[in-house]
């Protein structure tokens, strides 16, 4: 049994040396040093190991290398002999070295791989958008293909359960804009316009944007993780073998559910944002809620509401498609679920913001 304070002792003169004690990984360094000082100029020819109480595999490996270098091992105990035989007989090759790639070359490789991946990802996204759209349209034309139970479950998960967090965030974003508005407009005596600023920016941009980002982080990632785990457990393959199309049962219900819930959530965020605006008006501008309500119709138009809510289903479509696409892209291993989930969230938020920028230009041109 290996004792905590294992010791090794090397004794003898230059030609005949003896080891006694425990030759284990903890005492190997000491044994090697003592042997080197005792056997000057590598003159030792034989090593007696009869006094060894204990030997482990690193110790045996060292003894084997000594033996290979012409040292004769004597007094080997039978139980050590079998270990020595086993270790010495092993065909030991050094671990292969991976040649390091120069940094500039790695940079070029990364750049090329990045471009290739981007192009590939874009083609994949476009293809998947097409497939998802065609399956959704086919489900809408043949309502028998729709799965109401799955759709309602996803509506509950992506919509109803998200209400508290989205409500709180909408109020907070209105407060943030309100404070900034008052601070910036007060020097010009226009702090009253803060009400316009908050209402218009919430209705046109902030409510829908905050909702879409939240839903991408909350539900888009959940879509990827759910489908990804099914993919790793071969559940998706099981569907295919049963002649059930994964697009139809996994993607379409999620897509329809999200296209229904995101506009509703955005409308809810609109209301909560306006309530936040009312609170700001009361606190910072001493405008009472009833005055706020009477002013509101003069400040915002139906166009502002339309611009905000029009974008919601489009964002929802892309969030759902990207989430499901990355879920189905998961390979066999569990770690790819994490990777694809991260990718899905990053990509869907990017797409949401890019589309929003595009819409801003578009609506400006159209004069809405």
């Amino acid at each position, binding site marked *: 049994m290996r004792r905590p304070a294992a010791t090794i002792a090397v004794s003898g003169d230059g030609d005949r040396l003896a080891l006694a004690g425990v030759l284990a990984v903890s005492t190997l360094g000491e044994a090697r040093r003592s042997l080197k000082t005792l056997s000057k100029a590598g003159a030792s020819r034989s090593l007696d190991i009869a006094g060894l109480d204990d030997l482990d595999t690193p110790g045996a490996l060292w003894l084997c290398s000594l033996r290979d270098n012409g040292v004769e091992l004597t007094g080997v105990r039978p139980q050590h002999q079998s270990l020595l035989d086993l270790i010495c007989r092993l065909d030991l090759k050094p*671990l292969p070295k991976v040649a390091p790639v120069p940094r500039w070359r790695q940079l070029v490789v990364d750049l090329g791989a990045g471009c290739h991946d981007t192009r590939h990802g874009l083609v994949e996204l476009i293809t998947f958008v097409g497939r998802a759209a065609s399956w959704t349209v086919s489900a809408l034309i043949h309502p028998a293909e729709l799965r109401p139970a799955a759709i309602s479950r996803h509506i509950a998960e992506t919509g109803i359960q998200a209400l508290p967090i989205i409500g709180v965030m909408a109020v907070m974003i209105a407060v943030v804009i309100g404070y900034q508005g008052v601070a910036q407009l007060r020097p010009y005596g226009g702090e009253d316009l803060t009400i316009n600023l908050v209402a218009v920016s919430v209705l046109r941009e902030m409510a829908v944007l905050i909702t879409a980002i939240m839903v991408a982080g909350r539900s888009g990632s959940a879509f990827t993780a759910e489908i990804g785990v099914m993919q790793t457990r071969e559940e998706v393959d099981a569907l295919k073998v049963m002649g059930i199309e994964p697009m139809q049962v996994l993607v379409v219900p999620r897509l329809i559910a999200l296209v229904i819930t995101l506009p509703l959530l955005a409308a809810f965020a609109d209301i909560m944002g306006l309530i936040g605006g009312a609170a700001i008006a009361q606190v910072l501008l001493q405008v009472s809620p009833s005055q706020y309500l009477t002013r509101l119709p003069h400040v915002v138009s139906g166009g502002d509401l339309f611009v905000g809510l029009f974008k919601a289903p489009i964002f929802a479509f892309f969030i759902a498609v990207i989430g499901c696409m990355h879920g189905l892209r998961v390979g066999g291993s569990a770690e790819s679920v994490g990777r694809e989930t991260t990718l899905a969230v990053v990509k869907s938020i990017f797409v949401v913001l890019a589309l929003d920028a595009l819409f801003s230009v578009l609506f400006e041109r159209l004069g809405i």
Partner: protein
Amino acid sequence: MSGRAKAMSEPILSARGIVNRFGAQLVHDQLNLDILPGEIVGIAGGSGAGKSVLLKTLTGLHRPDAGDVVLNGKSVQSLGAAEKASLIGVLFQQGALFSSLSVAQNIMLPMREHTTLPANEREQLAAMKLALTGLPADDGIKFPGALSGGMVKRAAFARALALDPQILFLDEPTSDLDPIAASGIDSLIRQLNETLGVTVVIVTHDLTTLFTICGRIAVLVDRKLTVDTADELMKSTHPWIHEFFHGPRAEGAMEARRTSHGN
């Protein structure tokens, strides 16, 4: 090493009065188990009988509701990190190789943490452990994702052996393997036990493993352990144990036992 083992008649692992319960469900009721140095002990039991929980209890990963596990004279819960690492090695069912490290880095990780060996010697030792478990050195630079099931088990074996532990705990070492790979693992276990003198505790369903390499078998049934040699357990009148050792699958495994013991 086997000498050091046989000189000791004190159990190297001693579990006393182990009680585990989850909620109202009692999984283990006052289990006792003594394992002598150099033994190979198999732990068998039906699915859901609590074999994995028992293994976690023995290795100190799970603290039992009552009772204690004593490894090498010390309670498993009080062992220090380095002490524990050099005392026990665990082969997890799925290998549990760290996917971000290459096979060789996996093997070298415990050495780097708990020894003062320089890097080149760690690599040399890792190559030796790979050779010991029958993997070519070229596989050392592969990542776990690129290995087949049998190779994962062997690589995980090599990592469990990294610090020359005295007790190896193997969780289903032959599951998910083809019969050839499974026999390879069986003979590897026996070889390591004979040459390194390492004590082995195997949790398994594999009757061939139980019959051919385990000296004693601990059967976990009705929340209790029945520990005996396969021959004695064959005579048991307990219906589950009787079924386990006399069912259609047991016959073929017994045949393997007769062949291997005849040699």
